[in-house]
Each structure stands twice: as C-alpha cells, then as structure tokens.
C-alpha cells in the first residue's frame, strides 16, 4: 500500500518538478495562434469582403485603405481571402497531425514496451520511411490517390505516424529502465497498468510538444502541396494555393503572393514558438 | 631517461633569496548571481616561494578552487576579482590580455581534477602537448614531437612515442592524469596550480601521482599550489598549508605545525576527522553541521555554528588572521585553548 502511494507519488513529484516559468516567446506564440484561431472561427467578422466575390472593376489593385492587401486578378480582396484561408490551413494543421499523433504515440508506446519482434518490424519500417524525403513520399501517395485535401490527409497520415512512434518509443524505453517502473514491476503490477498509468504519461509529453511543432510543419506541407496543385484545389482560399495564384504576377502585383505567404509564415512561427515554449516548460535545464 | 631541464634557481628568477615567487594580497572574488553577489573568496593573502609546495585545504564551497582560478583570471563572467596577485613583480589581475597569454600555460600551469573531462576528447594527447609547445616554446615538427615524447616519458608513461597518437579515452585514469601533467609541463613552468589532482583517482594511483608531483618538483625546481580537501594528501606532499573556510583563509602554517598544533578550531576538526593509523582504535569524529551558505553568512566567525570552542566573542565580530607562532597564523581567537597532538609516524 505504502509503496503504491510511493510509486504514484514519484510520478506526480516528477511532473511537478518539471514545470518552470514560461518564456516571453511562448506568450508571443500563443498570441499568434489565438489570432489565427479567431480568423478561422469568425472569418465573417474579421474579413470585410466575400472572399470569392469577383469584382472586375477592381482587379490587380495595390494595397489601399479599401483593400488592405490589395486585390487579385479576379478582383477578389486578398485580405478577406487570407482571413478565410485561416480556416482551411488550421484544419490542415489539425488533420495532418491528429492521426499521426494518436496512432504514432500508441504504436510507439507499445513497441517501446514490448520490444523484441515488434521492435524489429518497427525498426524496418522506420528505416524505409526515413530514406525518403517526407515531401516526396507524400507527393507520391497523393499521386496514386489523386489530388485533394482528403487524400493529402490520408497520405500524410500513412507516413507521419512514424515520427511520433519513434519519439515515444525512445521515451518509453528510457522510462522502462527508470527506477519507479522497476519498483512497480517488483510490486507485481500488470504490464497494462504499468504502461498506461506510469509510463504513458511521461512518455507522451514529448509527443505533445512535438505535435505543436508538427502543426507548424503541417501548415507548411499543406501549403506546399497547395502550391503544387496537389492539396487544396483552387478556388479554395488556402494560403499555398493563393501564393500559386499570384506567381505570374510577381512583378505586376506582388501582393497577391506576398501577403498570404507572410501570414502563412506567421502562423508557422506561432505554432513552433508554442511548441518550443512547451518544451522549455516541461523540461527545464538543471 | 633524458636529461631533465635544470631546476629553477631563485636567483635566476631575478628574486633575492627568500623572496616569494607568487604573492597574493587581499584577493577577493565575487560572483554576481541572480540571487545576489556571492563572495567566494574573501581577503585571501599568501605567498609561494620558489620550490615550495603550498597546500590549500578546505571543504567543498570553501573557495579553494576559486582562489586558484582567480590567480590566472580563469573564471567565467560575471565575476569580479580585486586585490593583488604579484607574479615575479607583475600584478596578474591588472596585466594585459597579451601578457596573461604569455604567463598562462608557460610560467604558471594548471592541472584539473578530472582528466577525462579536462582533456579534449577529439584531439590526440600528442596534439594537446604540441599546442602548448607551439604557443609558448615555438617548437614545430620533429623537434616538437621529440620534446612531447620526452614529456610523456618524464611523467612515467610507457611507450611514449606511440602514445603521442592516442586519444584521451584510450588511457586509463592514472595515465590520463599523468598525460595532463605532461601537457602542463610542456613549457617548464615555474609554478604548477593543481586543483584536486588526485581526488578522482583510486588510492593507489593517487599515491603514484603525488609521488610524481614531488619528483617533478625536485627535478624541475617547480613550486606547486596543491588544492585538496584531503589532509592525508597534504601530509604527504606539502611544505606549507593554508586552510580555507567559507571563502576565508583561517590558518596558515608549515605542514608539521598544522598536524601537531592546529591553531584554528576548524583545522582541529579536520585533524580529528582523520583516521589515525597506528593509534589504538577510536571512533572517527566528523565535524558536525554543514558548510555555510556563502550568500547568507552569520555575523562573526563563519565557523561558529559548528564549533565546540565557540563563545559570544566569536559571534560578535569576524576574527582577523594573526600570527600565533613563528610562520604560523590563525583567525581563531581561541587558538591557545586548542590541544596539540603526538607526532604519529606518517
């Protein structure tokens, strides 16, 4: 009894010992993410115009008071499109990372804990996946399935879970060797209980942190595929698609590509700052 | 065995007989931490004569290592060092960077406690010796390699020429420490600063290294400042001893005097906590309590909380270090109450 308390007490103490003071960059990141969420959830409030409305009287206009980011070759207000694009890109951030996070974490914990043959197979899978540039793998899979957002999510999920699994597997192995797990084993706890109540919470933390950073990468990837025409399809207001829309106007109307790209970068910075901030919080340097 | 270089003649150093080689006066080292200033070394003064082995003894946190590093300004900022450190007339604390580079590693060398971490793991031992030779002796090529081989031989490393190409992790602990000494001796320094050189070693190896240091002192006429927490090491090697506590020097004396008649309660405590070989069995007497927090020192003598001879006078004002016998100073106002010891065979 006392040792059970001791074992869980050790876990809790471990968790508490890790929280430190938040960095200012974390707050900056959170601000950006919240702003993006606002644009995604309430675009009609933030955006002054209908993003898909053509206005042939106002094509290719430079940024002005009426059109903060200018207009494109169809007369659409770029700022409004950017705002509406937030919804698409944040969705992309979520759906390209959620399944990999969940499935990858689970597989990683299992593989790390069980080891042996499972680990052998997993190692082989990792080797194969690591040898291909992620982008090329995703493009190849999308090529087979056909372009579009849903296929893109599928393609990323098929490959992306491996990164999470690798991370969690490593953490699980480290946790497995630690003293409190050995104590739990000696106490005769069942493997399932050890994994879920003891190892999992500690091993999952780096995965959650990585998830934040991965969302930033997911936005980048989604936009890249959108640019290539393999992800979101025009006329969807996705930031990458919008940059592609403007690529023929770089000299005459550079704002069509420039602003969506800037916002895209900003979103990426926001998420990665949050990810870094969380990493710092949860693992302070001694 | 090659011919060792001629020992240093004090007159050759340009000093009148009996004059100190290194003269430290009122050394004060302060670290600026987020919690406030930390006075690691407070008003420390001592001399080192040519060919002398001075031991600086104390617990962890006593300031002994910081003192050593302060001499050559080897501490990381933000650190404030005041006072005077005269090396053959030159004040090291105010010397130019260029002058410091000439003295450091050449006239004054340093060896650290843990050779595995003090040696660069990606360079061969030979290369690390050659670095010093290049920087200070201007040696290159075959001449440099010959000298490096001589040095490894001097410190007792077998097959020295082959070992030049070996990496630190390929040496055993004792051999690594010898290699570090060889590196430090590359430019025949007149003073060797040894920061706990044997603490990380096995007792038998420890003995070998200490004997090596003494032999080198003879052969090269080198002075040594040996920092340690182990009175046993002091007994074996030192001519004079300086005892530090809470950043202050509390006693200085010749080694036999320190063992026979310690004149500070702390030194007495250290002496008592030594197992006495040959005497009938007695329980070890550690010093009660723990070393003080340097950022929160009580007024008066810093040792007062742990001292068995303490009186109110001790707590009122911090005692100054005074001479209490020939060549013997102490910062304890009750030095005359302290017992003496029979001399035990070493």
């Amino acid at each position: 009894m006392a040792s059970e308390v001791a074992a869980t007490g050790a876990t809790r103490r471990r968790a508490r010992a890790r929280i430190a003071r938040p960095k200012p960059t974390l707050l900056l990141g959170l601000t950006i993410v919240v702003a993006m969420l606002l644009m995604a959830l309430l675009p009609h409030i933030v955006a002054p115009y209908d993003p898909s409305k053509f206005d042939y009287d106002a094509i290719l206009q430079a940024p002005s008071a009426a059109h903060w980011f200018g207009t494109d070759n169809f007369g659409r207000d770029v700022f409004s499109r950017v705002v509406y694009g937030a919804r698409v890109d944040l969705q992309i951030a979520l759906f390209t990372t959620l399944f990999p996070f969940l499935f990858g974490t689970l597989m990683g914990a299992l593989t790390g804990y069980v080891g042996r043959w499972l680990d052998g197979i997993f190692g082989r899978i990792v080797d194969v996946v690591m040898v291909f540039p992620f982008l090329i793998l995703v493009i190849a899979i999308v090529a087979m399935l056909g372009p579009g957002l849903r296929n893109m999510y599928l393609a990323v999920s098929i490959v992306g879970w491996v990164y999470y699994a690798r991370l969690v597997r490593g953490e699980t192995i480290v946790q497995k060797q630690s003293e409190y797990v050995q104590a739990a084993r000696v106490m005769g706890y069942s493997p399932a209980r050890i994994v879920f109540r003891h190892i999992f919470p500690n091993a999952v933390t780096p995965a959650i942190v990585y998830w934040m950073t991965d969302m930033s990468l997911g936005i980048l990837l989604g936009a890249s595929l959108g640019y290539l025409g393999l992800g979101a399809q025009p006329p969807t207001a996705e930031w990458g698609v919008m940059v592609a829309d403007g690529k023929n106007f770089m000299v005459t109307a550079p704002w069509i590509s420039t602003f969506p790209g800037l916002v895209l970068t900003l979103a990426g910075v926001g998420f990665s700052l949050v990810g870094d901030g969380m990493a710092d919080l949860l693992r302070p340097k001694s | 065995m090659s011919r060792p270089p001629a020992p240093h003649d004090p007159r050759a150093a340009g000093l009148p007989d009996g004059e100190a080689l290194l003269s430290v006066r009122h050394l004060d080292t302060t670290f600026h931490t987020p919690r406030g200033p930390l006075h690691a070394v407070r008003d420390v003064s001592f001399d080192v004569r040519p060919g002398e082995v001075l031991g600086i003894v104390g617990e962890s946190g006593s300031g002994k290592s910081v003192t050593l590093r302060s001499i050559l300004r080897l501490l990381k900022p933000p650190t404030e060092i005041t006072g005077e450190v005269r090396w053959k007339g030159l004040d090291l604390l105010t010397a130019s960077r260029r002058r410091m580079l000439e003295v450091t590693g050449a006239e004054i060398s340093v060896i650290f406690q843990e050779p595995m971490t003090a040696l660069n793991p990606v360079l061969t031992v030979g290369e690390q010796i050659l670095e010093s030779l290049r920087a200070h002796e201007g040696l290159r090529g075959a001449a440099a390699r010959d000298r490096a081989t001589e040095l490894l031989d001097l410190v007792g490393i077998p097959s020295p020429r082959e070992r030049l190409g070996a990496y630190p992790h390929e040496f055993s602990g004792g051999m690594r420490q010898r290699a570090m000494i060889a590196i430090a001796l590359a430019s025949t320094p007149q003073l060797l600063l040894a920061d706990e050189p044997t603490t990380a070693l096995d007792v038998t190896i420890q003995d070998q290294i200490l004997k090596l240091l003494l032999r080198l002192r003879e052969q090269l006429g080198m002075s040594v400042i040996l920092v340690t927490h182990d009175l046993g090491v002091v007994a074996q090697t030192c001519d004079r001893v300086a005892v530090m506590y809470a950043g202050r020097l509390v006693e200085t004396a010749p080694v036999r005097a320190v063992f026979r008649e310690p004149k500070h309660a702390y030194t007495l405590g250290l002496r008592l906590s030594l197992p006495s070989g040959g005497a009938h069995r007695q329980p070890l007497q550690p010093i009660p309590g723990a070393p003080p927090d340097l950022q929160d020192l009580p007024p008066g003598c810093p040792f007062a909380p742990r001292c068995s001879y303490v009186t109110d006078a001790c707590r009122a004002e911090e005692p100054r270090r005074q001479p209490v016998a020939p060549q013997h100073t102490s910062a304890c106002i009750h030095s005359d109450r302290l017992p003496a010891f029979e001399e035990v065979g070493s």
Partner: protein
Amino acid sequence: MIPTLLVILILVFAMVRLLPGDPAVAILGDRVTDEAVAKIRAELGLDRPLPVQFWYFFERVLRGDLGNSINLKISVIRLIQDRLPVTLFLTLYAGVLAAVLAVPAAVISALTRGSWMDNLTRAIFQIGLSLPVFYVSLQLLGLFGARLHWFPVGGIGPTPASNLYYLFLPALSLGFYLAAILMRNLRSSILEVLNAEYVDFARAKGIRPRLVLTKHILRNALISTVTLFGLSIGQLMGGAVITETVFAIPGVGRLMVDAIFGRDYAVVQGLTLAFAIVIMLVFLLTDLVYTVLDPRTKVA
C-alpha cells in the same frame, strides 16, 4: 541496408500495381492500342503470379532497365543520368550556403548569449524555420530575378561553373530552412561545449582565444551539427522538388512532379528508387564521417 533496399524495391514495385485499373493501361497512359497493351502485359508478365512479376522487375532493375517515359520518350535511366547531377549540385550548393549562413550566426549567437545580437539572430532564424521553400523561392525569383534582373529567372547554365550563378537563388531559397535548423543545433551544441572542462583547460594553457574557439569549441560542437547536416540532405532533396518547379530547373525534383501530373508511372517508379538509393548512400556516408569526427566511436 540490404533488407531495407529490398523492402523499398517491393514497395516501388507495388506502387504501380496498387493503382486502380490495369497497370498496363496505367503505364501506357493515353497511348493505348491493343498491341501496345499486349506488349506491355507480356513484358511485365502481368498474367503471371506476383512473385514472378517481381522477379522480372528485379532483374530489369539490376540490368539498369527502369522502363521508358511515355511523355518524354526516353528511357528512365537516361533521364536520371541527365537530371540527377543537376539536383545533386543544387542540393549540395544549398547545403554549402546553409553552412555559410548558419555557422557564423551560431558562433556569434552562442558567444553573446542573452544579448540583443543573440536574440535578433535567433529571431531571424526562427522565422527561417517557418518560411516555406516555395514562398522564398518565389519571392527571390520575383525580386532579384524578374524585377531587378540581378539573376536569371530560372533554368541552368551552359557549364557547371556558370551554375554557381544560375543556381544561386534556388540554392539560397532551398538552403534557408536548413540554415535555420543547423544554426539552432550548433548554437546549443556550442553552449554545451562552452561549459566543458576541456575548454577551461585549453584556456589555462594560454593558447590564443581564436585557437580555443576553432580547435576546442567548434571541433567538438560541430560533431552533432555535421551529423544533422548529413541526415537532412534527404529533406533538402525533397525541398528541391519545389525549388526546381518554381525556377524551372531540369532536375529530378521537377521531373518527379511533372511525371506525377503526367501520369508517367515508369518515371515515378524509377525516381522513387533513385531517391531512396541516393539518400541511403548519404546516410552511410554520414555514419562514416561521424566515426571519423569523434574518435571515441572508432571501432577497434
């Protein structure tokens, strides 16, 4: 390594066969005639059991026969021979530029830790981490190429040497992201090394500060960064896909995208295999370099 290669071959083989419909038709694309279909079917042995098909495929790969591009009418192996060097040049050029940007920045940043210079540098590189390659490529092309005419707007030069000029903008846009990753890693590596005893000892030897920096600090700090560099080459080649598309460079990256859009499956297959082999070789090389850089890892 061999088992991994085998798995990759199987996957590449399976790629085409996983497509809906008749693989022969898929490979032929629009140019479907009954004779052509029959010919392909015989060639690929499509009526034979799968292991036999794989064996044919395997044999042909060993002979260097990766099929033909239907769109470009050349053998795939020839295409790879022509275009892979271009992509490799671009990738390496990008790597060099990334190193040139990252190393000094990391040194300055680490040595002035906490100062405004450190913070500014870190902020710039933090943004670099989130800048999409296609965006940087497009902006650089638009500004320095199309608008200012300082650089050509794409394509490659007539000689390898001239490519240092032609491929400067593409390499820069590709290298930015890598520079950000390298700089971060090197900076934290240097900070770690700065605390090491051997740096103190080197200073205590009285050798010049510049030597302490290069022979002691950097020589150790760079070990992990060089390894990271090697492992990132793969990602770089992936980014080359985008850069080549924006700058219209005839490398394998652009070829891949074109082949995907053009349903040129033989090319997609062949290129996937080529990428895998090149990157595996790079990984091997990185491992070797690591054992050279860190003598503690030498196998006796």
